[in-house]
């Protein structure tokens, strides 16, 4: 059974997107990829649920 939430959870999705844009504004593609990889690890640990992580991987690969 799906546990991954794909419904929007941010009160202001534009602000969340803006935060991600600002984080990479001055970065090269390689540096931005490194940033994103660290973000994945940090957020995956924060979620702390292997089923959710597997579902998220499947969504990202299919999307």
């Amino acid at each position: 059974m799906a546990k991954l939430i794909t419904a929007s959870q941010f009160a202001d999705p534009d602000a969340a997107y803006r935060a991600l844009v600002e984080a990479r504004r001055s970065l090269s593609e390689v540096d931005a990829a490194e940033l994103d990889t660290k973000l994945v690890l940090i957020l995956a640990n924060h979620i702390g649920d292997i089923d959710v992580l597997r579902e998220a991987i499947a969504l990202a690969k299919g999307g």
Partner: protein
Amino acid sequence: MSNVRKSIYHYDYRRSPDQDAAVAARRPVVVVGAGPVGLAAAIDLAQRAVPVVLIDDADRIGEGSRGICWSKRTLEILDRLGVGERLVAQGVTWKLGKVFVGDDLLYAFDLLPEEGHKMPAFINLQQFYLEKALVDRALELNNLDLRWRNKLVGVEQRNDGARLTIDTPDGPYRLDADWLIAADGARSTARRLLGLDFAGVTFEDKFLIADVHMAADLPTERRFWFAPTFHAGQSALMHRQPDDIWRVDLQLGPDADPIAEQAPERVRARLDKVLKGHDYEPEWVSVYTFNCRRLDRFVHGRTIFIGDAAHQVSPFGARGANSGIQDAENLAWKLAAVLKGEGGSALIDSYDTERIEAADENIGHSTRSTDFMSPYTAAERRLRDAVLSLAPQAEFARRMVNSGRLSLPAVYDTPLSTPDTSPFAGSAKLGAPLPDAPLRRADGGPTHLLESLRGEFAVIHVKNGEAADGAKPEAVDGMALIAIGDDLIDDEGKFTQRFDATPGSTYLVRPDQHLCARWRTFDTAALTRARDRALQR
């Protein structure tokens, strides 16, 4: 085809007696710039019995890159100025939008799900029609003196006014103004003459904008594409206007050559792909870039900036001319009150506070839309493309897709409001324009709340409540009293719902239809205090 639309309405220069005056004539208000914003300000002031001189360096309307989307709040303001119904009848009413990724529909949206508003969410109408309607209205007002081919060439700031030098075909003349309203656009002469800095962000991305004549039976909706096959890698927008005119807006990228892109065969090649299979004729074409910036302050002594002269945003989201007309409405009643001695001088400062707040909100939305639509770097583009790629499957990503968040009126966090002492639910908000509601007049005819408020302070009172200290609900200190249940009847219950109204509920409305105080009982003293606060006296 030409990149200069031929002028559609022409007006004659007429010599004013002020040009022959031995001593410079003195006027309470001079407005410079007869675009939508300057016209709205001048008409609003004239309707408030303030004599106005409105000058413009041209003698015609109908040229250049122009707005087409007019928002509900703007239409409500224009309705009070006497042209709202005419414009709605003339314009294309729309509320549906569609966003495509590639050639696939990502989502559709409906802008006004709520019933019972007199004005629609948006109309599309060529700016020259709106200007024509406002000029017609201006010419009906005896105390509005509209002077074409009067070009501002000098401003000398004084403690009690501004001394202007105005050039005309007959040569220059002087005119003294108690107040100067600068509505002279993004390249404001008044701003330059005062040497004011206009700092902000200039975006490098270039866009091709074209109005084409095309008799196509396509639906009336805003269509936006990210990376469609007909315009590879870039975004595209298509929007309907009256007279079988369609607005097409194509992103060209930062490296596009603005001159080469306007060559007729180049434009044709692009439009052929967008409008494939349709017969069309380009009527007007231009290439633009845009800025997000504003003046530090809008009030500079006796000179006050409104519209694009004060702030500039990207065109995505209908925030330019719409916010300018809202500036005009915010300023007009305040300036009229100060000139009549009813308002304190701090009232003018509240124009600065409230409209800078609104401008910052617009610039914020505009910047975010631009971040999404035209990413700065490869890394930002990768993030944007990931959102677009996830969007069909994941709602959270769809919500981040940004093709322009359409303009909503600002809710002012302002010293003019009296804080609530009782809780209120409903959609009415302190500091916001009143939500409209369908009502019935005492004589039985249908009306709407907003058209019942004609620009003065008004008290709306719901009858059959208890009054504080035995006060009788009656007109207080010259303010109009509207009794819900007697003067206006809420048959459908929408007023009650939107204002969380209970018997006795009493609302104080500013002349610009913003809510500035509310109570659960009628209290004469509280009403007077709140009105005095809203006038800063």
